[in-house]
């Protein structure tokens, strides 16, 4: 019941508001406008389709068919799911991503797709790194000892910081003129790097500080998963002459499958929701290189008071996140069905 009130109701309300033009500052005035908000989001003037638009990304996306087929062959995927995935990938990467504004044309909302693209970039960069480093650290820390206990606490420590403290620390560290890192750079005779103002470095820098901030949480979850693996399996494997990598590959990884799935899904969802770090550190800059979807939604709702449009964008983000999570469960959770 509580779940219904606090989780489901806002989602339903967001969907409902997405069909209205609604002004945050004069809530009594609202107008049903059907799918206009979605047209504003997705569409534009003078759009054309070209096979070559963003082709490297689209080919990588289409290659996603291969693991789906492999998973199907191994019996991890039902035929229906396979067909759905193939159709979905072809639709998104083969067709939809070919649409772009032609000569003189433009998107209705010139910031919607770029900010969604930046969000995807963040998700794609941050998820493997934060999950992978979390796993590596958990493996290294999965041993008894006082020092290890202290380290575990230390690694978890940044996670308790609020985003404002986090950004204050890093804004200071990263400042080319005043920061510690800039001073270090100078001390070895190099020009300090403008981490947050170089459009190609800003997003990786955000990923790095997010790693520092949140990896401790994944470490704790992985450690819990590791402790659930029966030690006798390792002993038996050692007796059979398995080396460290074989033990990891054949005991640890299968034993962690569920934990890995959980952490990956949680991480992807968390990464899609990136906002605080970029909003405070770069405000979406430089040149929009770090403007992410949530910031765009926030600005639409609270700066421009366009509540209906912001709701529609949240619904889109919600659907994408649900879709990606469902794919995850399909691929990684396959053994459990």
């Amino acid at each position, binding site marked *: 019941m509580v779940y219904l009130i606090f989780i489901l109701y806002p989602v339903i309300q967001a969907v409902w508001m997405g069909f209205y033009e609604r*002004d*945050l*500052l*004069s809530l009594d005035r609202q107008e049903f406008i059907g799918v206009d908000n979605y047209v504003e989001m997705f569409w534009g003037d003078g759009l054309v389709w070209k096979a070559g638009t963003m082709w490297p990304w689209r080919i990588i996306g289409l290659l996603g068919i291969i693991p789906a087929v492999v998973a199907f062959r191994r019996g991890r995927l039902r035929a229906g799911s396979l067909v759905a995935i193939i159709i979905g990938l072809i639709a998104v990467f083969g067709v939809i991503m070919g649409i772009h504004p032609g000569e003189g044309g*433009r998107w209705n*909302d*010139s*910031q919607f797709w770029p900010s969604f693209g930046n969000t995807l970039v963040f998700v794609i960069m941050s998820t493997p790194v934060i999950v992978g480093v979390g796993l590596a650290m958990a*493996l*290294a*820390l*999965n*041993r*008894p000892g006082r*020092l290890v206990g202290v*380290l575990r606490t*230390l*690694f978890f420590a*940044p996670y308790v910081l*609020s985003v*404002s*403290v986090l950004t*204050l*620390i*890093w*804004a*200071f*560290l990263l*400042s*080319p*003129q*005043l920061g*510690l890192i800039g001073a270090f750079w100078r001390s070895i005779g190099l020009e300090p790097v*403008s981490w947050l*103002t170089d*459009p190609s470095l800003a997003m990786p820098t955000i990923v790095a500080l997010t790693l*520092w901030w949140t990896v401790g949480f994944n470490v704790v979850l992985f450690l819990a998963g590791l*402790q*659930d*693996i029966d*030690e006798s399996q*390792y*002993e038996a494997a*050692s007796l059979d002459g398995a080396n*460290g990598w074989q*033990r*990891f590959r054949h005991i640890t990884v299968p034993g962690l499958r569920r934990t890995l799935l959980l952490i990956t899904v949680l991480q992807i969802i968390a990464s899609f929701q990136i*906002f*605080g770090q970029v909003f*405070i550190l770069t*405000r979406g*800059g*430089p*040149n*929009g290189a770090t403007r992410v979807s949530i910031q765009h939604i926030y*600005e639409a709702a*609270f*700066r*421009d*008071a366009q509540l209906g449009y912001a709701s529609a964008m949240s619904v889109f983000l919600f659907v994408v996140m649900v879709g990606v999570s469902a794919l995850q469960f399909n691929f990684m959770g396959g053994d459990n069905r």
Partner: protein
Amino acid sequence: MTSSYNPKTTNSPWPLLLMLLAVLSLVAAACGGDDDSDDAASEETEAAEEAGAEAEAEAEEAEEAADSEEEMADEGSGDDIVLAFARFFGDCEEDVAGVTDVNQATTECEVIQIIENAFNAEDNGIRVEKIGGQAWGDYYTQLTTAFAGGELPNVGVMHQHRLPDFAGRGLLMPLDDAFANSSVIDFDDYTAPAQAAAQLDGTTYALPFDIHASLWHVNVDLFEAAGLTDGDGNPIAATSPEELIEQCEAIEAATEAQCFGHDWFEFGVGARLFLGLVQQQGGSLTDDSGAATPNTPEGQEALAVLNGLAEYSDVTQGYTDSQSAFLNGDIAILHNGTWVVDQYSREAGFNYVATNVPTLYNSPSVWGDSHMWVLPMASNEDPAVSAASVAFLEYLYENIPGWAKGTGHIAPRASVLGGDELADAPQRANYADTASSAGLVPSVEGWAGAWDALAEEVNATWITGKDQDTALADAEARMNDALG
């Protein structure tokens, strides 16, 4: 703790040692950061004058605001009318607790807090209680939420550039009658930019508290070394873009210093200079119908001047970096606002002068804005409450000299500008002209979004080398999207 561990999997000490090293460096980093977080926080407040900040604390602070309002309702059991007062400028209640002499203030925050203290110390049957106190990017989010959710302040601060968003929706109380009936407030005493700032379509919605604007903060020692001072030792003002570049050439030839500095990417300071330079040429950022028009010959010229200055600057410097480099003596001209004049007067270890942004074209003009006080309609419906709110406005009006003196902001009233209250305040005479040349941003709904788009596009020309014509065309399209 031990039984389920498998010590055999990783026996080498190296991973552990490496991790230890990593941890130590991170801890060191964190401590370093923590030590400075106070500093950073105060800088934040400073920068927050013109810049936004924390999104995170929002929900929390909005709650606090709501709580304190409730508290107020409870405490209001005495005879006093309690006014909820919403503002930014920071929190310093404890630093100046009990202080009622405005001359003791050293920061914006302290000035306004002391004015509030002094008002509450008077026996006037009204008590003012502050809600919020946060950086302003955050402030408007809270204020917007307050308007949507109903937990409103009785008196609040507002910039000129945000007034149309609220007044245009009928959320603010028209004040023409209140001012006409007041024996204290003389609206005609306000300067032209201040009057324009407070009005929308001929109706007055606000009491201007100041005009704040861009200034040239000059290191005169460097100017002198480059031979750019007049007979009295004052820095010579450039009168054309070419002359400005010549000054930079001279400074860089004669000294080690960087000629020009400002925040190149954080808070849209480049867009401010852009606005001023467009208006100096007689141009405007909007046309008669209210549509955005940055992509004009005047706009192209202004953007070219900015990119010319970038050659004599360091475009990786943001607000804080450029400020500290200037105070360190490494920058000859810093473009920043009125709000830092007193701070620089205290802290600069060189011959410091704050002066008008030079007029490079036909007529003087410089970016300006105004801090103003407004009364939300819904929280002032009770005549007793609105009378109390107006009484507080009158008190604030009387304290405009104290605000101008304590902060460096320009007094918006002719009688104060011409009076002797500010005569002994540092630097004020050097930038007196800015009082009349401050060019406000257009009074149109949705300007905040349009301004952000403009700032991002002009910034792109020096950060990423984006083509200037493309940037202005994109800016125009995006600004008009925002203006709707």
